[in-house]
């Protein structure tokens, strides 16, 4: 076989393998979507679509949006808004505080800077699971249990954010630029807002997304901190759906779709920033 043919064959084989793997990855999504449209009786009938007399042997008319409407009746709309609120609030405040602190630690000179940097970056070693129990106790004593503040406040000061932004500032913000701005009479705040922030735009976008995702998918914190059903986000609400007397599969499927769709959309819009933000830490290491 000529090398030309060989490489064509190997490329086809490659594509075949990739297609197979991609199918395996995508199959659950398809199953999820279709199952969320099935009624209770139909759930066990076919693997994907319920068999019937319609086009392609599928009973198209037995597909239903009932599961989704049932979700609304069960208060899932509220859970969705809660998720959006918690995730976006956490993202905004965590990003802003981390950016400010990261910038200061990177560029400002003051006594105690080294110590503070060490403490903050050193805390990255602490596994979050160690803090679960004492944080709960702290929130109890502060009277913040079952409160939105109790859930959100601890997320506003992530050391990881400071780590990322300090690095981003060091890489993207030249000292000379800051000095020049100062000479021109710009205030410190002005320097931060007008000079620095634009230069670290990619990191801001990436970190917003990271924090948003993190809070959206956070399960253990709201589970522990929040008690009222009206405050619970999708992550907790969906887990509770699972533990009822008889599992309503279609409902659970629809709930999953609802919980995943917003994030998927967000990501599709912002994917480049996300991936670049993620990998900047590792590869430049």
């Amino acid at each position, binding site marked *: 076989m000529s090398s030309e043919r060989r490489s064509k064959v190997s490329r086809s084989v490659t594509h075949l393998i990739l297609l197979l793997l991609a199918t395996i990855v995508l199959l659950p999504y398809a199953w999820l979507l279709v199952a969320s449209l099935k009624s209770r009786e139909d759930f066990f009938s076919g693997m994907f679509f319920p068999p019937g007399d319609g086009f392609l042997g599928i009973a198209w008319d037995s597909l239903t949006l009932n599961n989704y409407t049932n979700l609304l009746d069960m208060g899932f709309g509220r859970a969705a808004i809660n998720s959006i609120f918690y995730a976006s609030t956490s993202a905004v405040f965590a990003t802003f505080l981390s950016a400010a602190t990261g910038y200061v630690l990177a560029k400002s000179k003051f006594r105690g800077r080294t110590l503070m940097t060490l403490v903050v970056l050193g805390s990255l070693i602490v596994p979050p699971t160690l803090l679960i129990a004492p944080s709960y106790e702290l929130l109890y004593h502060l009277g913040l249990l079952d409160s939105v503040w109790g859930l959100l406040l601890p997320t506003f000061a992530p050391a990881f954010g400071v780590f990322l932004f300090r690095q981003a500032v060091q890489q993207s913000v030249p000292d000379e630029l800051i000095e020049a701005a100062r000479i021109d009479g710009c205030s410190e705040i002005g320097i931060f807002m007008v000079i620095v922030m634009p230069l670290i735009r990619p990191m801001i976008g990436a970190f917003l997304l990271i924090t948003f995702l993190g809070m959206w998918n956070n399960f253990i914190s709201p589970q522990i901190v929040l008690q009222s059903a009206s405050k619970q986000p999708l992550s907790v609400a969906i887990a509770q759906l699972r533990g009822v007397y008889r599992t309503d599969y279609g409902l659970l499927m629809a709930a*999953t779709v609802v919980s995943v769709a917003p994030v998927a959309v967000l990501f599709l819009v912002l994917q480049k920033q996300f991936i670049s933000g993620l990998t900047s830490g590792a590869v430049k290491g």
Partner: protein
Amino acid sequence: MSLRSPDRRVVFAWAAMTPFIVLFVVFMVYPLIQSAFLALNQTYGPETQIFVGTKNFELLIEDPVFWKAIRNTLIYTLGSLFIQLPLAFGLALVLNSRRLRGRSIYRLIFFSPQLMGLVFVSVLGALAFEKRAGLVNRTLAWITTDASLLEIDWLQSYIMPTLILISLWLYVGFNMIYFLAALQNVDNSLLEAAEIDGAGPLNRLQHVIIPSVRPVATFVVLLSMIGSLQLFELPYILLQGNGGPNNQGLTIVMYLYQNGFELGDLGYASAVGWALALMLIGLALIQIWMVRREEAMR
């Protein structure tokens, strides 16, 4: 005060950092210190505490359920490591080939489970591995036309494989991205030189690609281990809060949660947390040592 006064800069620096510092001290430093004291107490809810000294740790050492949790977590961690990472690396290699069409689409597809998030993937996984109606059994039965496969009770008899499979689906794409980025940073001139020297693809892989990818690989391995050792949401949602028959699906953090928030003993939970922290800090220190060693060798 003149704008150029260094004092003003310092004032700004502190002012800018204060919100972060306050929150950091309250919600990170204080709980960290407190966790040490908590571990010396037994509690029944945060209101009721009694000092017990080192008793929690003594009990922990003799606690068969705790050791079962450690064993499970380690099996899961190593299983994931040795299955997930080679797969991720292999995928990255395949996707890295120069003339591959649709690379970014494939990349997105493999990465997409990460977007769903651990919690929702766990819910989906629980449904997919259900006995009769689940996707997995249905597919297996369809492929092999063996209807008895529908009855495989994953969540009763094969908990660990189920956990590993689900996390495979979830994390392979994630790790692949790291490897892909690393591969794209491999010095092409080195590769070309090797090719000219007559090195075949396997040789090139072994002597050029792998060494230059090693730092990222180390990072990914450690990240993966740290994440795996803290596994909680997946088994918790899959098994609905308990460890499954014979505690087969009990992980360390799950045991921490059960003790702290179902039995109310935050002290014992803190002790479990410290045991885990020691394992993780040990790992982190190993990473730092390895990175230092790499740098020293260069």
